[in-house]
């Protein structure tokens, strides 16, 4: 059910981004202190929160844009830039730190060519460092999109990234085929 709402908004956003923001604001209109949930939904829908989006959200909700901006800059969750096709979050919690999270990030940077906190030049990967993902017994841990990977080694990282690249290639050629058909 939950995911349906998400895809709902995503479809809407693809068609008419401004209307999607209006809809998000509307869904939270009955709530007190709705600013953060509104921004969270915007990020879930668009992958990031741009200045224009904040402008719109402010217009529709009546919350001053400065207030929205101060929230976005305070909370680590919010991104002001769009992310790559795949979002990788490397855990740098204590257990993962002890288990060599640094090495996992190094090898991710090497394999994806994205710097921690940034996106790879080909737009395929965004790599972020986060605190504990709650799977400390499986340290070191990362999530790739929604999936959690544990007991990582540089070798495993390499395989995972390779697989994603292969998938992206496939999608690309499939996409091309489709557009030629049309």
């Amino acid at each position, binding site marked *: 059910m939950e995911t349906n709402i998400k895809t709902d908004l995503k479809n809407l956003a693809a068609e008419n981004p401004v209307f999607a923001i209006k809809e998000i604001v509307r869904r939270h209109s009955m709530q007190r202190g709705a600013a*953060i949930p509104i921004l969270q939904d915007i990020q879930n829908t668009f992958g990031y929160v741009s200045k224009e989006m904040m402008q719109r959200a402010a217009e529709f909700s009546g919350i001053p844009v400065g207030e929205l901006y*101060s929230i976005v800059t305070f*909370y*680590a969750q919010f991104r002001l830039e769009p992310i790559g096709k795949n979002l990788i979050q490397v855990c740098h919690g204590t257990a993962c730190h*002890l288990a060599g999270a640094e090495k996992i990030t190094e090898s991710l940077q*090497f394999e994806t060519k994205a710097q921690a906190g940034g996106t790879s030049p080909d737009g395929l990967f965004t790599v972020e460092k986060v605190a504990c993902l*709650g*799977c400390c017994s499986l340290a070191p*841990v990362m999530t790739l999109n929604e999936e959690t990977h544990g007991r990582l080694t*540089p070798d495993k990282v390499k395989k995972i990234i390779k697989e994603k690249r292969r998938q992206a290639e496939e999608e690309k050629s499939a996409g091309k085929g489709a557009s030629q058909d049309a």
Partner: protein
Amino acid sequence: MHSAPYRVKVGLATCGIASGAAKVYSALEQALQGTDVRLERTGCIGMCYCEPLVEVIAPGGESYMYGKVTPEDVPRLVEEHLKQGKPVRELLIMGEGAETDDYSFLQGQHRILLKNCGHIDPEDIESYMAVGGYEGLKKALTSMTPEEVIEEIKRSGLRGRGGAGFPTHAKWSFTRQAPGKQKYIVCNADEGDPGAFMDRSILEGDPHSVLEGMLIAGYAIGANTGYIYIRAEYPLAIRRLKVAIQQAQERGFLGERILGTDYSMQIIIREGAGAFVCGEETALLMSIEGKRGMPRFRPPFPAQKGLFGHPTSINNVETFANVPRILHQGAAAYNTLGTEESKGTKVFALAGKVRRGGLVEIPMGTTINEIVFNIGGGISTGKPFKAVQTGGPSGGCIPAELGDTPVDYESLKKIGAIMGSGGLLVMDEETCMVDVAKYFLTFTKEESCGKCTFCRAGTYQMHKILERITEGKGREEDIDTLEELAEKIKAGSLCGLGQTAPNPVLTTIKYFRKEYDAHVKEKYCPAKKCKALIEYRIDPEVCTGCTLCARQCPAGAISGEKKEAHEIDQSTCIRCGLCINSCKYQAITVISEPRVTA
């Protein structure tokens, strides 16, 4: 054929899923089609080190636990155990015929809070009710006054599990007595300690117990609205809570006129947005109100002036989960466990260099050694046990010599650590304590909200000094300066973040001074962790010239002809250590040697 069917349970918490439990579940689902075997899903069984876990319950009720199960194991499990009745020994970790010592993981524990985790289906309210769920609420609403509920909690001796150990009954009582009609109950599920997962496991494995606890608390203080503030990094826990709320509403445990009484309650979920400081209660309230999460001066305490200005009681997930048990079984049964000052049990997330990491529940007063060795099975690397860290960024490192310390609020405080919310990290000899201190300061420095100058500038300063020390540029006076700064930050900070941020540094200096001295005076890292003080070297005798490491090196620091010994250029090497992992012949070693400096 057997009379009752076999039951099969798969642990589907985040840790299980990360290890592939969902794939095992699907494989079982397919293999069991058309049989009368009941396949069930459950939360975290706690033996995270052995995930994915599959429990088979025989028609007679005997339990067999299988560990590290892969989808490939499923056909054998089904054929041999479920069809022929012969347990598969190689995979068995507990139950008749198991040949491992894994039973001792559970034997040392006392599970009252985790009783349901890994047993019931967290997405089915019936499953919770079948084991006494919502009986505590019924008892409270139908046979007790709010004052009596508070009195019962007082008799149980329950103290807050969020870290500080404040008596729960006192908080409720203050909130109840505070003037005002509108009151709030808030569940702190922010679980900020970066190395702890007990709250996640409880929410994923037994979400109704937390709701029931909140409902009882709401009744006791006179609140009709509850908020759960949960970190966004826990999507599965959020989803299961939503399911639980829906089901509780359908059953009449939540909503208007609960169980036919005139008590009403609604519960709203708020997701955190990635700020550690929002675990602090006043900051958390600001965040729910839709503002930047900045702690404020107390008093007034939230019990007087909390959410939207109204009296509010904020309690931790585990605190709430204790409440239904206390009400249902009675305070007298509850407070037989634990020590004089610390009653009941505490759940710990046992992780780090320990053989059996996972979710552990022990009576207060159990010693650190008992946890690490009897339950955790000792050190995973086989190296000597060095220390445990409790309380995360607010806590301290306890050296192996103090392993006999009982785990309770007072004893831990006495040695400079804290109980914390339940993170317990085990460290072995390969852990550099200066690096650990630096790690926590990196964390607190970044998470300081910046309101208090001492917290903001002081943690920055401490971090800088620690960085210098780990880079081999430490000065003689640095350790004294760290201690001075620590005192100032403690005294000059408004909230717990700053007041406790120096603890990891102070305890490591106190108990591991030698390691600091090695870094400062001899410019070496005994644990061989600090990048600036180590070197990677290739043993030319062992190297076969396979070129694998050279291709892996992101800095291009490794050179050599094919089939000839390779060499690392120390001036370009960035000490990432990727080469070590790539070498199949273990030809690469890391060294750190004392250097005498002028």
